[in-house]
Protein backbone atom coordinates (compact mmCIF):
# COMPACT_ATOMS: atom_id res chain seq x y z
CA UNK A 1 0.00 0.00 0.00
CA UNK A 2 2.75 2.45 1.02
CA UNK A 3 4.89 1.56 -2.01
CA UNK A 4 2.54 3.67 -4.19
CA UNK A 5 3.37 6.82 -2.23
CA UNK A 6 5.62 9.50 -3.67
CA UNK A 7 8.55 10.69 -1.57
CA UNK A 8 6.62 13.87 -0.74
CA UNK A 9 3.50 11.91 0.32
CA UNK A 10 5.64 9.58 2.44
CA UNK A 11 7.24 12.55 4.19
CA UNK A 12 3.79 14.06 4.88
CA UNK A 13 2.58 10.75 6.34
CA UNK A 14 5.65 10.49 8.57
CA UNK A 15 5.08 14.08 9.73
CA UNK A 16 1.42 13.35 10.62
CA UNK A 17 2.30 10.25 12.65
CA UNK A 18 5.28 11.95 14.27
CA UNK A 19 2.83 14.49 15.73
CA UNK A 20 -0.15 12.25 16.48
CA UNK A 21 1.88 9.65 18.41
CA UNK A 22 3.50 12.17 20.80
CA UNK A 23 0.09 13.87 21.23
CA UNK A 24 -1.33 10.49 22.28
CA UNK A 25 1.42 10.01 24.86
CA UNK A 26 0.94 13.56 26.11
CA UNK A 27 -2.75 12.75 26.61
CA UNK A 28 -1.85 9.60 28.54
CA UNK A 29 0.06 11.87 30.91
CA UNK A 30 -3.35 12.76 32.35
CA UNK A 31 -3.87 9.24 33.63
CA UNK A 32 -3.66 8.66 37.35
CA UNK A 33 -0.74 6.69 38.73
CA UNK A 34 3.00 6.77 38.84
CA UNK A 35 3.49 6.13 35.11
CA UNK A 36 1.73 9.27 33.93
CA UNK A 37 4.91 11.41 34.00
CA UNK A 38 6.87 8.69 32.22
CA UNK A 39 4.27 8.53 29.44
CA UNK A 40 4.31 12.32 29.10
CA UNK A 41 8.11 12.23 28.97
CA UNK A 42 7.94 9.60 26.23
CA UNK A 43 5.67 11.95 24.27
CA UNK A 44 8.19 14.72 24.79
CA UNK A 45 11.08 12.59 23.51
CA UNK A 46 9.09 11.45 20.44
CA UNK A 47 8.03 15.03 19.78
CA UNK A 48 11.67 16.12 20.00
CA UNK A 49 12.58 13.44 17.46
CA UNK A 50 9.82 14.63 15.12
CA UNK A 51 11.28 18.16 15.27
CA UNK A 52 14.74 16.76 14.47
CA UNK A 53 13.19 14.86 11.55
CA UNK A 54 11.63 18.07 10.19
CA UNK A 55 15.03 19.75 10.49
CA UNK A 56 16.57 16.90 8.50
CA UNK A 57 13.93 17.19 5.74
CA UNK A 58 14.20 20.99 5.67
CA UNK A 59 17.98 21.07 5.78
CA UNK A 60 17.95 23.68 8.55
CA UNK A 61 16.42 24.57 11.89
CA UNK A 62 12.66 23.95 11.51
CA UNK A 63 11.30 27.29 12.70
CA UNK A 64 10.44 28.92 9.39
CA UNK A 65 6.79 28.04 8.72
CA UNK A 66 3.53 27.52 10.59
CA UNK A 67 3.49 23.73 10.91
CA UNK A 68 6.94 23.65 12.48
CA UNK A 69 6.33 26.77 14.55
CA UNK A 70 3.12 25.47 16.14
CA UNK A 71 4.72 22.08 16.73
CA UNK A 72 7.64 23.81 18.47
CA UNK A 73 5.19 25.96 20.46
CA UNK A 74 3.57 22.72 21.73
CA UNK A 75 7.02 21.29 22.48
CA UNK A 76 8.16 24.29 24.58
CA UNK A 77 4.85 24.27 26.45
CA UNK A 78 5.37 20.57 27.14
CA UNK A 79 8.95 21.16 28.35
CA UNK A 80 7.91 23.98 30.72
CA UNK A 81 5.03 21.88 32.06
CA UNK A 82 7.27 18.80 32.44
CA UNK A 83 9.90 20.79 34.36
CA UNK A 84 7.29 21.89 36.90
CA UNK A 85 4.89 18.97 36.94
CA UNK A 86 6.72 16.96 39.63
CA UNK A 87 6.31 19.79 42.15
CA UNK A 88 2.69 20.65 41.33
CA UNK A 89 0.06 17.95 41.20
CA UNK A 90 -3.02 20.14 40.96
CA UNK A 91 -5.55 18.32 38.76
CA UNK A 92 -6.71 21.58 37.15
CA UNK A 93 -3.16 22.60 36.35
CA UNK A 94 -2.34 19.11 35.03
CA UNK A 95 -5.45 18.67 32.87
CA UNK A 96 -5.37 22.17 31.35
CA UNK A 97 -1.61 22.03 30.63
CA UNK A 98 -1.71 18.61 29.00
CA UNK A 99 -4.82 19.53 27.00
CA UNK A 100 -3.10 22.72 25.78
CA UNK A 101 0.03 20.79 24.78
CA UNK A 102 -1.92 18.08 22.94
CA UNK A 103 -4.20 20.58 21.16
CA UNK A 104 -1.25 22.69 20.04
CA UNK A 105 0.58 19.62 18.75
CA UNK A 106 -2.48 18.52 16.78
CA UNK A 107 -3.12 22.11 15.58
CA UNK A 108 0.28 22.01 13.86
CA UNK A 109 -1.23 19.48 11.44
CA UNK A 110 -3.68 22.14 10.22
CA UNK A 111 -0.81 23.75 8.35
CA UNK A 112 0.99 22.20 5.39
CA UNK A 113 4.68 21.50 5.68
CA UNK A 114 6.88 23.68 3.51
CA UNK A 115 10.32 22.34 2.73
CA UNK A 116 12.02 25.50 1.53
CA UNK A 117 13.71 28.12 3.68
CA UNK A 118 13.63 31.69 2.37
CA UNK A 119 17.15 33.13 2.11
CA UNK A 120 15.98 36.02 4.29
CA UNK A 121 15.46 33.52 7.12
CA UNK A 122 18.91 31.98 6.92
CA UNK A 123 20.45 34.10 9.65
CA UNK A 124 21.10 33.30 13.33
CA UNK A 125 19.05 36.36 14.32
CA UNK A 126 15.93 34.91 12.71
CA UNK A 127 16.48 31.54 14.38
CA UNK A 128 17.09 33.20 17.75
CA UNK A 129 13.94 35.32 17.30
CA UNK A 130 11.75 32.33 16.50
CA UNK A 131 13.27 30.06 19.16
CA UNK A 132 12.77 32.62 21.92
CA UNK A 133 9.33 33.64 20.67
CA UNK A 134 7.97 30.09 20.93
CA UNK A 135 9.80 29.51 24.19
CA UNK A 136 7.95 32.53 25.57
CA UNK A 137 4.69 31.01 24.28
CA UNK A 138 5.57 27.91 26.31
CA UNK A 139 5.92 30.01 29.48
CA UNK A 140 2.76 32.00 28.73
CA UNK A 141 0.80 28.79 28.06
CA UNK A 142 1.71 27.04 31.29
CA UNK A 143 1.27 30.35 33.15
CA UNK A 144 -2.30 30.55 31.82
CA UNK A 145 -2.96 26.96 32.95
CA UNK A 146 -1.64 27.81 36.43
CA UNK A 147 -4.01 30.82 36.32
CA UNK A 148 -6.97 28.59 35.51
CA UNK A 149 -5.97 26.29 38.38
CA UNK A 150 -5.78 29.31 40.72
CA UNK A 151 -9.19 30.59 39.63
CA UNK A 152 -10.71 27.12 40.10
CA UNK A 153 -9.01 26.17 43.36
CA UNK A 154 -8.07 29.48 44.98
CA UNK A 155 -4.59 28.24 45.95
CA UNK A 156 -2.19 31.21 46.21
CA UNK A 157 0.77 29.03 45.11
CA UNK A 158 -0.84 28.72 41.67
CA UNK A 159 -1.29 32.49 41.48
CA UNK A 160 2.41 32.92 42.27
CA UNK A 161 3.32 30.28 39.68
CA UNK A 162 1.18 32.05 37.06
CA UNK A 163 2.96 35.33 37.77
CA UNK A 164 6.48 33.84 37.79
CA UNK A 165 5.96 31.99 34.50
CA UNK A 166 4.44 35.08 32.87
CA UNK A 167 7.46 37.10 34.08
CA UNK A 168 9.86 34.55 32.54
CA UNK A 169 7.79 34.53 29.37
CA UNK A 170 7.72 38.32 29.18
CA UNK A 171 11.50 38.58 29.59
CA UNK A 172 12.07 35.93 26.91
CA UNK A 173 9.43 37.57 24.67
CA UNK A 174 11.22 40.91 25.05
CA UNK A 175 14.52 39.38 23.93
CA UNK A 176 12.69 37.63 21.06
CA UNK A 177 11.26 40.97 19.88
CA UNK A 178 14.68 42.61 20.03
CA UNK A 179 16.24 39.71 18.09
CA UNK A 180 13.36 39.93 15.59
CA UNK A 181 13.97 43.65 15.10
CA UNK A 182 17.68 43.03 14.49
CA UNK A 183 16.82 40.29 11.97
CA UNK A 184 14.28 42.49 10.21
CA UNK A 185 16.75 45.35 9.98
CA UNK A 186 19.44 43.07 8.55
CA UNK A 187 17.00 41.54 6.06
CA UNK A 188 14.91 44.55 4.99
CA UNK A 189 16.61 47.69 6.29
CA UNK A 190 13.89 48.56 8.81
CA UNK A 191 13.15 47.41 12.35
CA UNK A 192 9.47 48.29 12.54
CA UNK A 193 6.54 47.82 10.17
CA UNK A 194 3.07 49.33 10.40
CA UNK A 195 1.08 46.12 9.96
CA UNK A 196 -1.60 44.49 12.07
CA UNK A 197 0.82 41.64 12.88
CA UNK A 198 3.45 43.98 14.33
CA UNK A 199 0.82 45.96 16.22
CA UNK A 200 -0.70 42.81 17.72
CA UNK A 201 2.74 41.49 18.68
CA UNK A 202 3.45 44.78 20.46
CA UNK A 203 -0.03 44.74 22.00
CA UNK A 204 0.84 41.34 23.47
CA UNK A 205 4.03 42.81 25.02
CA UNK A 206 2.10 45.73 26.53
CA UNK A 207 -0.64 43.41 27.77
CA UNK A 208 1.74 41.18 29.72
CA UNK A 209 3.45 44.34 31.02
CA UNK A 210 0.01 45.42 32.20
CA UNK A 211 -0.55 42.07 33.96
CA UNK A 212 2.86 42.15 35.67
CA UNK A 213 2.14 45.66 37.00
CA UNK A 214 -1.47 44.85 37.93
CA UNK A 215 -0.39 42.26 40.47
CA UNK A 216 1.06 45.06 42.61
CA UNK A 217 -2.06 47.23 42.60
CA UNK A 218 -4.43 47.17 45.53
CA UNK A 219 -7.90 46.06 44.44
CA UNK A 220 -6.67 44.68 41.12
CA UNK A 221 -4.38 41.90 42.39
CA UNK A 222 -5.55 38.31 42.92
CA UNK A 223 -8.40 37.05 40.78
CA UNK A 224 -8.70 40.12 38.47
CA UNK A 225 -4.95 39.93 37.75
CA UNK A 226 -5.18 36.17 37.15
CA UNK A 227 -7.94 36.77 34.58
CA UNK A 228 -5.82 39.43 32.86
CA UNK A 229 -2.86 37.01 32.76
CA UNK A 230 -5.10 34.36 31.22
CA UNK A 231 -6.41 36.89 28.70
CA UNK A 232 -2.78 37.70 27.85
CA UNK A 233 -2.21 34.15 26.64
CA UNK A 234 -5.37 34.28 24.54
CA UNK A 235 -4.10 37.52 22.99
CA UNK A 236 -0.73 35.87 22.31
CA UNK A 237 -2.51 32.95 20.62
CA UNK A 238 -4.68 35.36 18.63
CA UNK A 239 -1.56 37.28 17.55
CA UNK A 240 -0.33 34.04 16.01
CA UNK A 241 -3.47 32.29 14.77
CA UNK A 242 -5.97 35.16 14.41
CA UNK A 243 -3.93 37.84 12.67
CA UNK A 244 -3.88 36.89 9.02
CA UNK A 245 -7.11 34.89 9.32
CA UNK A 246 -9.68 36.77 11.43
CA UNK A 247 -7.89 40.12 11.16
CA UNK A 248 -6.53 40.44 7.63
CA UNK A 249 -2.76 40.86 7.38
CA UNK A 250 -1.91 41.00 3.70
CA UNK A 251 1.66 40.07 2.78
CA UNK A 252 3.91 43.10 2.87
CA UNK A 253 5.78 43.99 -0.31
CA UNK A 254 9.32 44.64 0.90
Amino acid at each position, binding site marked *: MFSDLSAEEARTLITIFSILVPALFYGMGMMEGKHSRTLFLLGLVLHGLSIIYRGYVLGGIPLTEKHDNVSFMAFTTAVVYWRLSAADTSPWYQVTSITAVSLLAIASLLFPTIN*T*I*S*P*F*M*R*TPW*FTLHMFLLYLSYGFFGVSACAGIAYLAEGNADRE*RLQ*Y*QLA*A*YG*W*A*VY*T*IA*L*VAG*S*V*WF*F*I*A*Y*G*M*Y*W*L*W*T*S*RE*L*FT*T*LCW*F*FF*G*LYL*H*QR*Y*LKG*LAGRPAAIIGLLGYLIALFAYFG*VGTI*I*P*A*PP*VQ*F
Partner: protein
Amino acid sequence: MKAILNFFLSIRTAYWFFVFFAVIMLWGSIALPGNLAFFSGIDDTPLFRWLSEAGNIGTTWWIYGLIAGLGLFALNTLVCTGEALLFRVGRINTIARLSPQIMHVGVLFVMLGHLLTASMGMKLDLDIRQGETKLVAEGAAITLVSVREELDANGYAVDWEAVLRWSNGGKTGEVRSLRPAHPLHMGSYGIFSKSVNVDNKGSSALIRVSRDPGAPWALLGGVLLCLGGAGFVLARMNG
Protein backbone atom coordinates in the same frame (compact mmCIF):
# COMPACT_ATOMS: atom_id res chain seq x y z
CA MET B 1 3.84 70.28 41.49
CA LYS B 2 3.98 67.47 44.05
CA ALA B 3 0.66 66.13 42.80
CA ILE B 4 2.00 66.03 39.22
CA LEU B 5 5.19 64.30 40.42
CA ASN B 6 3.19 61.76 42.41
CA PHE B 7 1.01 61.13 39.37
CA PHE B 8 4.04 60.30 37.23
CA LEU B 9 5.63 58.26 40.04
CA SER B 10 2.61 56.07 40.52
CA ILE B 11 2.66 52.45 39.34
CA ARG B 12 -1.07 52.93 38.74
CA THR B 13 -0.22 55.58 36.11
CA ALA B 14 2.14 53.14 34.37
CA TYR B 15 -0.62 50.52 34.53
CA TRP B 16 -3.15 52.79 32.84
CA PHE B 17 -0.58 53.67 30.19
CA PHE B 18 -0.30 49.95 29.43
CA VAL B 19 -4.12 49.75 29.19
CA PHE B 20 -4.13 52.77 26.86
CA PHE B 21 -1.42 51.31 24.59
CA ALA B 22 -3.16 47.93 24.47
CA VAL B 23 -6.42 49.59 23.36
CA ILE B 24 -4.68 51.83 20.78
CA MET B 25 -2.69 48.89 19.36
CA LEU B 26 -5.88 46.84 19.12
CA TRP B 27 -7.61 49.69 17.30
CA GLY B 28 -4.62 50.15 14.98
CA SER B 29 -4.38 46.47 14.12
CA ILE B 30 -8.00 46.60 12.95
CA ALA B 31 -7.81 50.06 11.31
CA LEU B 32 -4.71 49.24 9.24
CA PRO B 33 -6.08 46.35 7.18
CA GLY B 34 -9.41 48.20 6.94
CA ASN B 35 -7.74 51.12 5.14
CA LEU B 36 -5.02 49.27 3.28
CA ALA B 37 -4.77 51.63 0.31
CA PHE B 38 -4.54 54.67 2.58
CA PHE B 39 -1.78 53.18 4.75
CA SER B 40 0.11 51.60 1.84
CA GLY B 41 2.97 54.16 1.86
CA ILE B 42 3.46 54.38 5.62
CA ASP B 43 6.49 52.07 5.70
CA ASP B 44 8.25 53.75 2.78
CA THR B 45 8.33 57.27 4.22
CA PRO B 46 9.55 58.61 7.59
CA LEU B 47 6.48 58.55 9.81
CA PHE B 48 6.24 62.27 10.60
CA ARG B 49 6.46 63.21 6.91
CA TRP B 50 3.90 60.53 6.01
CA LEU B 51 1.52 61.84 8.70
CA SER B 52 1.82 65.44 7.50
CA GLU B 53 1.24 64.41 3.88
CA ALA B 54 -1.51 61.87 4.57
CA GLY B 55 -3.85 64.25 6.43
CA ASN B 56 -7.20 62.56 7.15
CA ILE B 57 -7.06 62.81 10.95
CA GLY B 58 -10.19 60.68 11.17
CA THR B 59 -8.15 57.66 10.04
CA THR B 60 -4.78 58.49 11.57
CA TRP B 61 -5.85 59.80 15.01
CA TRP B 62 -4.76 56.62 16.74
CA ILE B 63 -1.15 57.11 15.56
CA TYR B 64 -1.19 60.64 17.02
CA GLY B 65 -2.70 59.15 20.19
CA LEU B 66 0.07 56.57 20.30
CA ILE B 67 2.77 59.23 19.88
CA ALA B 68 1.23 61.46 22.57
CA GLY B 69 0.81 58.47 24.91
CA LEU B 70 4.41 57.41 24.34
CA GLY B 71 5.58 60.95 25.11
CA LEU B 72 3.76 60.90 28.47
CA PHE B 73 4.91 57.33 29.11
CA ALA B 74 8.51 58.49 28.52
CA LEU B 75 7.97 61.17 31.17
CA ASN B 76 6.50 58.58 33.55
CA THR B 77 9.46 56.29 32.91
CA LEU B 78 11.98 59.09 33.35
CA VAL B 79 10.48 60.26 36.66
CA CYS B 80 10.16 56.71 38.03
CA THR B 81 13.72 55.81 37.05
CA GLY B 82 15.12 59.07 38.41
CA GLU B 83 13.32 58.61 41.72
CA ALA B 84 14.45 55.01 42.01
CA LEU B 85 18.07 55.80 41.27
CA LEU B 86 18.20 58.89 43.51
CA PHE B 87 16.27 57.73 46.54
CA ARG B 88 16.04 53.98 46.51
CA VAL B 89 19.42 52.85 45.23
CA GLY B 90 20.81 52.67 48.78
CA ARG B 91 18.21 50.06 49.67
CA ILE B 92 18.95 47.97 46.61
CA ASN B 93 21.17 45.10 47.54
CA THR B 94 21.62 43.41 44.17
CA ILE B 95 22.08 44.54 40.58
CA ALA B 96 19.07 42.39 39.69
CA ARG B 97 16.83 44.78 41.60
CA LEU B 98 17.90 47.61 39.32
CA SER B 99 16.51 45.68 36.37
CA PRO B 100 13.15 47.50 36.09
CA GLN B 101 15.07 50.78 35.83
CA ILE B 102 17.38 49.29 33.19
CA MET B 103 14.26 48.22 31.27
CA HIS B 104 12.82 51.73 31.66
CA VAL B 105 15.98 53.30 30.24
CA GLY B 106 15.85 50.71 27.42
CA VAL B 107 12.27 51.76 26.60
CA LEU B 108 13.40 55.40 26.48
CA PHE B 109 16.21 54.59 24.03
CA VAL B 110 13.84 52.54 21.84
CA MET B 111 11.47 55.52 21.78
CA LEU B 112 14.37 57.86 20.92
CA GLY B 113 15.32 55.50 18.08
CA HIS B 114 11.76 55.52 16.72
CA LEU B 115 11.63 59.32 17.04
CA LEU B 116 14.85 59.74 15.03
CA THR B 117 13.77 57.18 12.43
CA ALA B 118 10.35 58.79 12.11
CA SER B 119 11.81 62.26 11.60
CA MET B 120 15.16 61.76 9.79
CA GLY B 121 15.14 58.29 8.25
CA MET B 122 15.47 57.72 4.52
CA LYS B 123 14.48 54.74 2.34
CA LEU B 124 14.94 54.35 -1.38
CA ASP B 125 14.15 51.29 -3.51
CA LEU B 126 16.18 50.95 -6.70
CA ASP B 127 15.39 48.58 -9.55
CA ILE B 128 18.72 48.37 -11.38
CA ARG B 129 19.48 46.45 -14.56
CA GLN B 130 22.85 44.80 -15.01
CA GLY B 131 25.47 47.36 -16.11
CA GLU B 132 23.25 50.28 -15.09
CA THR B 133 24.31 52.99 -12.62
CA LYS B 134 21.84 54.74 -10.32
CA LEU B 135 22.32 57.75 -8.12
CA VAL B 136 21.64 57.16 -4.44
CA ALA B 137 22.20 60.54 -2.79
CA GLU B 138 24.83 63.23 -2.29
CA GLY B 139 26.86 62.22 -5.34
CA ALA B 140 26.99 58.53 -4.37
CA ALA B 141 25.97 55.98 -7.02
CA ILE B 142 25.61 52.22 -7.39
CA THR B 143 26.39 50.13 -10.47
CA LEU B 144 25.03 46.61 -10.79
CA VAL B 145 27.93 44.50 -12.07
CA SER B 146 26.38 41.03 -12.10
CA VAL B 147 23.57 38.88 -10.66
CA ARG B 148 23.46 35.24 -9.63
CA GLU B 149 20.46 33.22 -8.38
CA GLU B 150 20.28 29.74 -6.86
CA LEU B 151 17.01 27.76 -7.14
CA ASP B 152 15.97 24.52 -5.45
CA ALA B 153 14.42 21.54 -7.24
CA ASN B 154 10.95 23.17 -7.04
CA GLY B 155 12.14 26.45 -8.55
CA TYR B 156 12.14 28.44 -5.28
CA ALA B 157 15.01 30.88 -4.76
CA VAL B 158 17.23 29.68 -1.92
CA ASP B 159 20.00 32.23 -2.38
CA TRP B 160 21.11 35.02 -4.68
CA GLU B 161 23.86 37.55 -5.07
CA ALA B 162 24.05 41.01 -6.61
CA VAL B 163 27.57 42.32 -7.25
CA LEU B 164 27.70 46.10 -6.85
CA ARG B 165 30.22 48.83 -7.50
CA TRP B 166 29.91 51.87 -5.25
CA SER B 167 31.14 55.26 -6.46
CA ASN B 168 31.23 58.45 -4.45
CA GLY B 169 32.08 61.96 -5.66
CA GLY B 170 33.51 60.69 -8.95
CA LYS B 171 35.77 58.13 -7.20
CA THR B 172 35.00 54.50 -8.05
CA GLY B 173 34.98 52.31 -5.00
CA GLU B 174 35.45 48.61 -4.51
CA VAL B 175 33.19 45.92 -5.94
CA ARG B 176 31.18 44.15 -3.25
CA SER B 177 28.73 41.28 -3.11
CA LEU B 178 25.21 41.80 -1.73
CA ARG B 179 23.13 38.83 -0.57
CA PRO B 180 19.73 38.57 1.17
CA ALA B 181 19.97 39.29 4.92
CA HIS B 182 23.65 40.22 4.48
CA PRO B 183 23.52 44.01 4.01
CA LEU B 184 26.38 46.25 3.00
CA HIS B 185 27.25 49.47 4.76
CA MET B 186 28.60 52.22 2.58
CA GLY B 187 29.17 55.51 4.37
CA SER B 188 26.05 56.30 6.37
CA TYR B 189 23.89 54.14 4.07
CA GLY B 190 22.77 50.57 4.43
CA ILE B 191 22.30 48.57 1.22
CA PHE B 192 19.86 45.64 1.29
CA SER B 193 19.01 43.06 -1.33
CA LYS B 194 15.25 42.64 -1.80
CA SER B 195 15.15 40.40 -4.88
CA VAL B 196 16.89 39.63 -8.15
CA ASN B 197 15.58 38.72 -11.57
CA VAL B 198 17.84 36.58 -13.73
CA ASP B 199 16.77 36.76 -17.36
CA ASN B 200 18.42 36.03 -20.70
CA LYS B 201 17.30 39.46 -21.93
CA GLY B 202 18.95 41.22 -18.99
CA SER B 203 19.19 40.58 -15.28
CA SER B 204 18.21 43.08 -12.63
CA ALA B 205 18.18 43.54 -8.87
CA LEU B 206 15.82 45.31 -6.52
CA ILE B 207 17.90 47.04 -3.88
CA ARG B 208 16.92 49.07 -0.85
CA VAL B 209 19.14 51.94 0.21
CA SER B 210 18.39 53.28 3.65
CA ARG B 211 19.77 55.65 6.22
CA ASP B 212 18.34 55.13 9.67
CA PRO B 213 19.78 57.38 12.38
CA GLY B 214 17.42 55.84 14.93
CA ALA B 215 18.55 52.24 14.51
CA PRO B 216 21.67 52.38 16.79
CA TRP B 217 19.61 53.99 19.57
CA ALA B 218 16.82 51.47 19.18
CA LEU B 219 19.42 48.69 19.28
CA LEU B 220 20.97 50.13 22.45
CA GLY B 221 17.47 50.30 23.94
CA GLY B 222 16.86 46.70 22.87
CA VAL B 223 20.06 45.52 24.55
CA LEU B 224 19.09 47.33 27.77
CA LEU B 225 15.59 45.83 27.57
CA CYS B 226 17.15 42.36 27.29
CA LEU B 227 19.51 42.98 30.23
CA GLY B 228 16.72 44.47 32.32
CA GLY B 229 14.38 41.63 31.36
CA ALA B 230 16.93 39.04 32.50
CA GLY B 231 17.44 40.90 35.78
CA PHE B 232 13.67 41.28 36.21
CA VAL B 233 13.28 37.52 36.10
CA LEU B 234 16.19 36.97 38.50
CA ALA B 235 14.72 39.49 40.93
CA ARG B 236 11.36 37.78 40.95
CA MET B 237 12.41 34.15 40.94
CA ASN B 238 11.39 33.91 44.57
CA GLY B 239 8.36 35.99 44.68
